[in-house]
């Protein structure tokens, strides 16, 4: 798999448990035990998810060996969101063109109807 920053971000976000962890960290720092609490999975499994998130730069961890709180890093999320925003821009432009074509078709249909009425 590609290991550029954006690919790592999206791969990390592809898992619902990891998204839930990020949502929890958006409210503030937490330890592995605190993060594991709401999930029906082991602390070891949560640790694995944290490693993926850390590698993607989505979280950072304190240095203290005993108590390593996890903190949300917002920059990669911002990059992912900007990337999607450009796609939105392209699609909006396409939908604006579709709108123009629809209005042209609607206009010519009205005209045809008008001509039919004149003949009646």
């Amino acid at each position, binding site marked *: 798999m590609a290991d550029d920053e954006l690919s790592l971000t999206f*791969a990390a976000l592809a898992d*619902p448990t990891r998204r839930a962890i990020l949502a929890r960290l958006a409210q503030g720092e937490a330890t592995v035990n605190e993060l594991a609490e709401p999930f029906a999975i082991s602390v070891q499994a949560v640790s694995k998810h944290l490693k993926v998130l850390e590698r993607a730069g989505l979280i950072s961890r304190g240095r203290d060996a005993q108590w390593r709180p996890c903190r949300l890093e917002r920059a990669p999320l911002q990059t992912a969101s900007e*990337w999607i925003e*450009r796609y*939105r821009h392209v699609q909006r*432009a396409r*939908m604006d063109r579709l709108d123009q074509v*629809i209005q042209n*078709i*609607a206009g010519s249909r009205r005209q045809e109807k008008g001509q039919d009425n004149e003949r009646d």
Partner: protein
Amino acid sequence: MSETELIVEPGRQDIVMSRVFNADRATVFAALTDAEALSQWWGALDGGTNVERHDPRPGGTWRFVNRDKDGNEYAFQGVFHDVVPDERIVQTMEFLGMPGHVLLETATLEEVEGGTRYTSVSVFQSVEDRDGMVAAGMEHGARADMEKLAELVEKKG
């Protein structure tokens, strides 16, 4: 003018797009299925879209090619699975820049206040496929933007 709603949620393999057009369903359906109309709105590039094949009925196939000023070709093709006039189009789409990565698109039309709501749900084979397609669409669109800008500048000169 109505806003285009686009949902591209990180970590998912779908894209949902929706927009209300000020026209009846038959008119919107015509713009979605008429080859001449499609060539005017589908492609992002100034040259528009060359509709090489378009047979909107179950089992029918389609193939569009966009060409930019440098002669680069962007081909797209697919198969229609379900076509209900004025209501629904279900089709596959494959960007031949990423062959083998096929998405399934369901487009529905419903009468709403102010006209017709067009909703398109595209499901990709994986999250990576979806993100790759977003990237490809972006590159494509960015190039088209630059071409439009160049044309404006040239006209002024």
